[in-house]
């Protein structure tokens, strides 16, 4: 038993200790309250945002791409709706089982299944959807509907696919769309200050972008703006209700200058041979016909191609993906002669009365090297007019021989050689307009006079793309002024390219035109066979590109056994004369004769254009 004294001290001791603990806890509670205060008052806005972020989920809504029209307002590329069977990989655990079950009542095709297997994991991780089958028939839809209770995660919805109404006609001009992913996707979306995230798709293929042609060049216009839907979600991510919606803005429709009828004519005329055709409206520089052959189906490219199909396309030796119209380099050959003639007039080296004697070859005075013409025995005494009509090489060899290469180069540059003359072409090549510096740098050889002589007949190093040839033709037709070429004039229609020739007047131009009309209409013209194909006048100049140089016709017969050795056929033309509306260029690889092989194709296109005006 403890005594009173001790009891008193015990009580005091207890008092002290209890109060001590209370004070200790008071401090601790102060800390708790301080923490609560800082959460609720000091950092309130941070946490308010965090709570808001928690409970709301932003989902992108894909816009529809703009429609692409031809120059008459006919649809070229559209968004085609179809009913698709879709599932969300993130909600499916056993993919094989799902596919097998569905396959029983809706037969899926191998290609789709292999695509699904390939993309399953990725789509699951990104919470994207995958398409089990596109274009369901009415019967398939009802077959699924009666069983839909068994498949919570599979649904039927309307999705679009990008559809070119003429898939093989506009392969290169309009191009195709493809799936956009990875860094490119982030990049594209960041332009709209959004990030790739869950999206309600309009297209079966998900995020898409124009990969080539107009679809690529005008991707920003065609794409439109993503919309947003903000949903209230719970912790499991279930969408509860729509809080806010910003609807997507569909892409702008684009009216191109392309013309279906002439395109069809070009396609039919070229018959899948390797080559290219470009035709333009002279008043605006608008590209109306644009074909690189052989072509391929853009719809297949846009909406899924099996590996085999894709391999077949890229290993095809005719290179269907290669856009010959803006990327193929060809020597202009004899088509260059009108430009050289103009150079002679401009620099007063020749006039219309100037003649030379053409023995069928030209001898370079410096080293006695012989440059041959195409006609054995030559054209005799010949002036500029006849030299163009009959395509005398000797006349132009001799004229080029008297030309300064730097001046000649400037002259040709103004005609569009060696530069990009198209405002909205996809990956255009500039061809090659050689200069002495260029030759030194690439071949480590100085410029010979012979190089200039060769250039006089469009052979040698000089090369141009078919669209450059069309531009050159347009420049000739319009007497030195042309609008920069374009597919879509709403953006680039007004940019004019003017070539002022001081010593060439209207009379000279008209004479030149009539010489070029003579190429077809004169009995001696190189493209006389075209006369019967039209009922109006066309100015033209044909060319034949020698790939292997031969001295005699017998030699050529031997080398032409190999198709790839045969000459390229080439022609430029404009008409109807005397007030030309269209210019056209045609290149047919290994076609041998510019006049009789490329010529009919050019006439077919020209006819289609003029008839439909």
């Amino acid at each position: 038993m403890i005594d009173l004294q001790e009891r008193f001290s015990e009580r005091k001791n207890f008092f002290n200790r209890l109060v001590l603990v209370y004070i200790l806890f008071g401090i601790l509670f102060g800390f708790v309250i301080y923490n609560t205060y800082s959460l609720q008052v000091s950092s309130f806005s941070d946490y308010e945002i965090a709570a808001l972020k928690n409970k709301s989920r932003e989902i992108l809504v894909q816009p529809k791409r703009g429609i692409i029209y031809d120059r008459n307002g006919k649809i070229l590329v559209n968004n085609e709706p179809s009913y698709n069977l879709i599932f969300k990989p993130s909600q499916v655990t056993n993919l094989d089982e799902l596919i097998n079950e569905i396959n029983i009542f809706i037969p899926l095709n191998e290609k789709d299944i292999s695509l699904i297997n390939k993309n399953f994991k990725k789509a699951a991780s990104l919470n994207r959807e995958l398409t089990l089958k596109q274009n369901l028939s009415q019967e398939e839809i009802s077959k699924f509907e009666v069983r839909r209770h068994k498949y919570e995660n599979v649904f039927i919805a309307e999705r679009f696919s990008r559809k070119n109404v003429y898939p093989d006609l506009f392969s290169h001009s309009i191009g195709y769309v493809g799936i956009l992913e990875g860094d490119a996707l982030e990049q594209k979306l960041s332009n709209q200050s959004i990030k790739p995230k869950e999206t309600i798709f309009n297209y079966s293929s998900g995020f898409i972008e124009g990969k080539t042609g107009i679809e690529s060049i005008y991707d920003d216009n065609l794409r439109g703006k993503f919309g947003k839907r903000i949903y209230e979600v719970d912790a499991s991510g279930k969408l509860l209700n729509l809080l806010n919606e910003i609807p997507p803005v569909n892409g702008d429709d684009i009216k191109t200058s392309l013309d279906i009828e002439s395109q069809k004519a070009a396609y039919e005329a070229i018959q899948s041979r390797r080559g290219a055709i470009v035709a333009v409206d002279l008043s605006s520089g608008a590209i109306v016909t644009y074909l690189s052959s052989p072509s391929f189906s853009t719809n297949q490219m846009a909406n899924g191609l099996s590996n085999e199909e894709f391999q077949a396309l890229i290993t095809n030796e005719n290179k269907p993906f290669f856009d010959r119209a803006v990327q193929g380099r060809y020597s202009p050959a004899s088509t260059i002669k009108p430009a050289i003639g103009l150079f002679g007039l401009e620099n007063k080296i020749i006039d219309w009365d100037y003649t030379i004697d053409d023995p069928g070859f030209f001898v370079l005075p410096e080293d006695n090297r012989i440059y041959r013409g195409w006609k054995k025995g030559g054209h005799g005494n010949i002036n500029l007019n006849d030299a163009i009509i009959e395509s005398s090489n000797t006349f132009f060899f001799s004229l080029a021989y008297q030309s300064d290469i730097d001046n000649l180069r400037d002259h040709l540059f103004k005609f569009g050689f060696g530069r990009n003359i198209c405002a909205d072409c996809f990956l255009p090549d500039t061809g090659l307009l050689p200069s002495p510096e260029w030759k030194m740098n690439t071949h480590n050889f100085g410029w010979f006079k012979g190089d200039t002589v060769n250039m006089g007949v469009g052979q040698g190093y000089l090369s141009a793309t078919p669209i450059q040839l069309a531009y050159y033709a347009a420049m000739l037709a319009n007497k030195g002024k042309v609008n920069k070429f374009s597919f879509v004039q709403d953006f680039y229609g007004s940019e004019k390219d003017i070539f002022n020739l001081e010593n060439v007047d209207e009379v000279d131009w008209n004479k030149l035109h009539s010489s070029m009309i003579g190429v077809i209409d004169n009995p001696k013209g190189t493209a006389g066979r075209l006369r019967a194909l039209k009922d109006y006048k066309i100015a033209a100049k044909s060319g034949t590109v020698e790939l292997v140089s031969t001295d005699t016709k017998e030699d050529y017969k031997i080398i032409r056994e190999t198709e790839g050795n045969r000459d390229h056929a080439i022609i430029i033309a404009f008409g109807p004369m005397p007030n030309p509306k269209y210019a056209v260029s045609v290149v047919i690889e290994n076609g041998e004769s510019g006049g009789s092989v490329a010529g009919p194709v050019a006439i077919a296109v020209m006819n289609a254009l003029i008839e439909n005006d």
Partner: protein
Amino acid sequence: MIRKFLNLFRNGVYFDQYLFISITLLSLMGLVFLFSASQGNIETTIKQSFFVLFGLILMFAVSQPDPDFYKNNSLLFFLISVLLVVITLLTGKEINGAKRWLDLGFFTLQTSEIIKITLPVFLASYLFDKSLPISFKNTIVSLILIFFIVNLVRIQPDLGTSLVILIAGLYILFLAGLSWRFIGVSAGLFTLSLPYIWNNFLEPFQKQRILTLFDPNSDPYGSGWNITQSKIAIGSGGFTGKGYQQGSQAHLDFLPETETDFIFSVIAEEFGFFGVCVLLGIFFFILLRCLYLALNARDRFCRLTIGGLSLLFLSTVFINLSMVVGIIPVVGMPLPFISKGGSSLLSFYIAFGIIISMATHKKLMRR
């Protein structure tokens, strides 16, 4: 029989209106909060109201016997509760890998909640007549007892409750006059043995919780989820709160365990800092009343018991609050009188019943 029962009230009823009113108020507020925290589950709320009603009656009943009754029978109560804990360990109902509950048919009893009360009372009855400072022998006996019980509960495993039992036992020892020298030495030893405890006594998930505390953002969707979401709930409540049943964190399932451990987060989200202050005000009132009662208790046993039990209450509130605001790791710990619960809720009504008994039965003091 009836007369004998009425004899109990011959000297009137023993009743502390301050504690009674504040606890009743807290309980009623708890029901309101729970209704929201349970997503408006009327069944849960009704069940809880029965517990509250029963708890208040129990508190009243427990406060009637004389403190001597608890002093004399504390060993018996203690042994019974140890037995219950042991039975639980052997035959208990396993939920989520933990054996904490004894299925009584009408009620699943969490036996550790009983020993939480009986241990401090028993220790008080053991130490109240020991001279000051507590001898080394008595200290060791008490400590062995405490650690034995703590370990019994820990292996269930129930880290939260075992922690509370540990500190409740230590409070009694401390209040009873544990020598400062002993405190100093053992605190030093404890600090040194921390790495050993970390490596040998903590389950991996418990370690993870502690680690998470220091950097909740390291794994916001894993073990940091609870703390992160709780902080967002509290923080987004702001000063005035989002309004009753308007808490998005609570109602869209972002917040875990809204009915039990994290009910404070729901309150903070819906009633804001203002609501938090009102709630804490009531808690502080109860605690200060307990302090007053302890200091004016009739004898040492009553003092120790009131002190120990009130600190038990204080610690529980503190652990719960500091857990939900992210100061300490997540341990299962309800907010007394507010969180949904059976045993844990009733244990505090019993504790306060005992406190009221200790405080209201006066003895004439010799002067």
